[in-house]
């Protein structure tokens, strides 16, 4: 049984745990403010909030696209639709800002924007990214966004005063209705008697599975690794970072210690999908999906990560991520095995890291080509180098030969250019909807050189490659 709170209502349902939250909201509960725009997480019209009780007894809310949400993932949580934000009298602060700035025209996308922006207000003190990023997954075809930006400025000017994780403050400022104060207690009651839901097909966040195979999975029970507290944690042990397979992209981004090692992490991760999808998509899901342009796979390949795989009998094995991908959508995993975690050594002082991604639309898009580089320099020599490239081969590619060529060599423009000749032989891009073969060849060249130009502008510049 799935049990949760939908707005003010306590829900208990026996429908399959793989059922889609959006359909439950619209069809079963007739809450029609949540819209169906695309059913693939690419428009944000179905955005709702999912709030879970944290260790301090407060509720952390995150915006999710309900079209890709198996209902299992809201078990024990507070789901908030636009109806659950409406005040009995007047508009909320977010709603009013949208109205006053003429930031709604046809109105179909508007509830999604209101929910996302309210999610930001609820989250302001724990979110790394800003208010604009909170609506990175919301598409509007009418306004051209400038009026929406003005609305976010109005909201920000009010939120400036918010300096703690307080629901009371938000109620006083009319961001959320008063019943939000009752939610922690209600969730606590559910949690006390909640059974772990661990039957059915193992699913990561479902953000890709529910795009392509929703018809099948909505009739099944699913076992969500993101909801499994044993494998969704992130921590640092000595010099090793350990990320549970069930951790979401947002979990990684919100893990503040990582930013000490990757100062640009926010900029890299903002290029990965949208806020809503990052709140749902898991590391494990991204890896087993084995897309040749998987952003996280590219990121972790350049960190020479290892993955820890468990089997049903309690055994486990550890392999390098670069050995995990066998061919197009083919991976080194056996029946009954599950990725437990991914681990990598944190960069040291002489190490430099860069991640690049280019897509037709810079944000909320799948890469045409992406690439990461992790390089350590000792006495002007390339001590170690790890390069990865997506979109140029059937798998997320570790550029083995290019790395071997460069390792031990002097970091010079000449050597970097020579290594590009090796790189060219390592890749096999194909033409598809994300770009022609020739473009992808040129693009990986650019991103390869781009790593060095950004990290070592004194060694190589754009005129060297023109």
């Amino acid at each position: 049984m799935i049990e949760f709170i939908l707005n003010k209502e306590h829900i208990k349902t026996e429908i399959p745990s793989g059922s889609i939250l959006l359909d439950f909201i619209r069809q079963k509960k007739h809450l029609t403010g949540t819209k169906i725009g695309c059913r693939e997480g690419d428009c944000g019209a179905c955005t709702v909030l999912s709030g879970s009780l944290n260790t301090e007894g407060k509720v952390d809310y995150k915006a999710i696209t309900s079209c890709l949400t198996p209902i299992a993932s809201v078990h024990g949580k507070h789901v908030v639709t636009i109806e659950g934000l409406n005040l009995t009298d007047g508009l909320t602060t977010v709603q009013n800002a949208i109205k006053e700035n003429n930031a709604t025209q046809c109105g179909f996308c508007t509830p999604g924007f209101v929910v996302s922006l309210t999610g930001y207000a609820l989250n302001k003190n724990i979110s790394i990214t800003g208010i604009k990023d909170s609506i990175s997954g919301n598409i509007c075809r009418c306004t051209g966004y400038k009026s929406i930006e003005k609305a976010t400025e109005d909201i920000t000017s009010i939120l400036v005063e918010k300096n703690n994780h307080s629901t009371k403050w938000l109620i006083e400022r009319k961001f959320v209705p008063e019943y939000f104060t009752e939610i922690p207690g209600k969730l606590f009651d559910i949690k006390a008697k909640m059974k772990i839901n661990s039957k059915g097909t193992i699913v990561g966040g479902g953000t890709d599975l529910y795009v392509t195979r929703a018809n099948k999975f909505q009739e099944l029970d699913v076992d969500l690794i993101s909801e499994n507290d044993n494998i969704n944690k992130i921590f640092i042990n000595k010099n090793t970072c350990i990320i549970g397979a069930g951790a979401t992209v947002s979990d990684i981004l919100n893990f503040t210690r990582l930013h000490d090692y990757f100062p640009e992490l926010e900029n890299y991760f903002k290029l990965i999908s949208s806020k809503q999808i990052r709140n749902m998509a898991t590391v494990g899901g991204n890896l087993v999906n084995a897309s040749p342009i998987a952003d996280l796979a590219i990121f972790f390949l350049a960190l020479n990560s290892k993955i820890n795989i468990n089997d049903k009998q309690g055994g486990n094995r550890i392999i390098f991520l670069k050995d995990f991908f066998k061919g197009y959508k083919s991976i080194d995993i056996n029946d009954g095995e599950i990725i437990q975690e991914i681990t990598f050594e944190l960069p040291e002082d002489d190490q430099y890291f860069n991640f690049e991604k280019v897509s037709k639309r810079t944000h909320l898009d799948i890469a045409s080509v992406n690439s990461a580089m992790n390089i350590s320099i000792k006495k002007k020599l390339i001590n170690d180098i790890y390069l990865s490239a997506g979109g140029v081969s059937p798998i997320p590619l570790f550029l083995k030969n290019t790395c071997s060529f460069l390792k031990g060599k002097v970091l010079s423009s000449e050597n970097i250019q020579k290594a590009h000749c090796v790189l060219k032989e390592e890749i096999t891009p194909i033409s598809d909807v994300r770009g022609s073969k020739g473009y992808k060849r040129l693009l990986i060249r650019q991103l390869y050189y781009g790593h060095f130009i950004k990290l070592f502008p004194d060694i190589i510049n754009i005129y060297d490659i023109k």
Partner: protein
Amino acid sequence: MKNIDSINHVQGKSIFIDDITVNHGTLYGVVFGSPFAYGKITKLNIEDALKIEGVIRIFTYHDIPGVNQIGAIIQDETLFAESEVHYVGQPIALIVAETEKIAQKARDLIYVDLDEYDPIIEVSDAKEKQQFIMPPRTFKLGDTKAAWNNCEHIFEGKATTGGQEHLYLETQGSYAIPQENGNIKIFSSTQGPTAIQKIGAKVLGIPMNKIEVDVVRLGGAFGGKEEQATLWAIMTALAVYHLHLPVKLILSRNDDMFMTGKRHPYETQFKIGLSGDLKILAFEADYLQNAGASADLSPAITERTLFHSTNSYFVPNVKATVYTCKTNLPPNTAFRGFGAPQGIFVIEAAINHASNKLNIPAREIQKINLLKENDEFPYGQAAKDVELTRIWNTAQNNFNISKLEKEVSAFNNSNELKRRGISLTPITFGISFTNTMMNHARALVHIYQDGSIGISTGAVEMGQSVNTKMVQIAAKVLSVVPERIKIESTNTTRVANTSPTAASSTADLNGKAVQQACDALLKRLKSTAAANLKVKEDMIHLRDEAVFIDNEKTSLTWEQLVWKAFANRVSLTENCHYSTPKIYFNKAKGKGHPFSYHVYGLAITTVTVDCISGSHEVDSVKIVHDFGKSMNQEIDNGQIEGAVVQGIGWMTMEEIVFDEKGRLQSNALSTYKIPDIYSAPNSIEIIPLETESNDEAILKSKAVGEPPFIYGIGSFFALQDAIRAFNPSYKSEFDAPLTPEKVLLGLYEE
């Protein structure tokens, strides 16, 4: 005044088709479309699908009681394919089941046996095979043949623009309900309720009065629901006709993208001739328009391309021909601008081509050739109230064009990894349906005996705030507060024989009708007041919900006056008809006075290109726009901003990809990208140029829906400018959209 829907919108309370509370017994439809682009159906296999529990019936053309024909201008389109299919996604059958999921499952079991033919995808192929929707159309002015001899410079080139998916956030949908005596009520997300009623009656073989179409609002349309909402509405009506139960059909995004037409792609050969002092003396263009598999609105779109072939310039010798090419793609259709943006892109490309060759800024050619008062358009109409020079000067004074250009080159000289570019885009857009017969509208205004007001018109609310403007007009004429006024749904039973909400003209046409109706009601109320207060009628004025004798307020309120009129058996209802005066057009000659007025403007666009990745951003779009006297500046600004970003999407990002078999590859939001918040320009500045305007514009507030879309073209030429700043050997091909792929290839081409 804010959009009257905004309070419901932000609370998620606005009702769209899919939100209507369904009646008991409602069934759900899913459409089976052709998996092939071109072929002869030998057998349609539906037996397995029918066996699924919950499947009620599968409809094909055999079930059509009337005529299987839905073509609006040319009778060349079926509701359901008969023996041949002509594009992937062409409807073949409608599955009706107890739930949508069951209908989808059943659809997966349907397949067709088919003799497949080679499809035509490209216009060049269609032209070679002489596959046209209709004979080519030509507009002529002067004599280009003779003019070439007088030209100092002659340049020829090619310009291509891609298609564009409407991507209204609300997909196409319809919900039909049986009424007594075989009548059918259809709730549809359509811009053209009358089209559904008229064509639906024909398909069902019943008179129009048996079909009632009702539209509350649309979740975006942009032209995509002008003609192409009709199919789905008629399909639900057909199912209701047979089953006598309510039937709902909402297209999935995927089906919507596969089955509906888009903006027409164009491929054009142009030739431009200039004098030594840069006057454009002659312009020729052969436009190959990709119309898709049937006519739809292509003949009208063809015409508007021709009407706008010279954009904002006076060209004394013009020969422009559009070939409306028939291909095996979904029938392309109306999309904001209606063929004008495609035509304007070509002359702007020609000017840029000339300026590249002559090594001078394009603006020097643009400025010297701007239309002046009484200049003749290629279609014979004389340009009136031309504001282009004033607009250009206002832009110069407020934005300092030469300073902007200097800033761009200073940036380019000091920046290694990035380059900036700048462009100017003047626009001139004719307002009216170019088919004169469509320029009319009606309004039905009731004042209820308690003083509240209900207004019905033929205007469809689709986010453009036309309903808000109707409230403003009525409130102004009747001197009441807007809260008294309710705008009713758009309904064929209340207001009949309407033109679709399109051509930017809807507020003008319907607004004028509302204005006239309210004027008539006001006259009757004044007469009641005069009799009651025993003064002459011309001394009576209504102001702020009260009756005044000249400037003196009486104790008679709006509500009391209305009640007195009612008690005196005065009619409190008025139905008015408006038709645009003065306009006409002779199609055979290609000459006339098709537009009641023109809208003018200018945009300055600056962009920044990342020379490593080829990605770009639009820094700013600075606009001087002729609103006439805007009746709602904040709403009109919203139309401009939305149109600009849509135009930028068309020019830089949105790429429709079909494979060689005619299957849409960009068939989802994951593969077809429209602007998100990060792709909007960093700033859009709008300076409203207040002009004398025109009496045919409602309250002298000019139409605003489509013209600003054309400003988006500026992003294309600004990007080319930026690429050239990095790579002097860039070939500057005029091939839109200029995606990051083409930008990067351009930055590094040799």
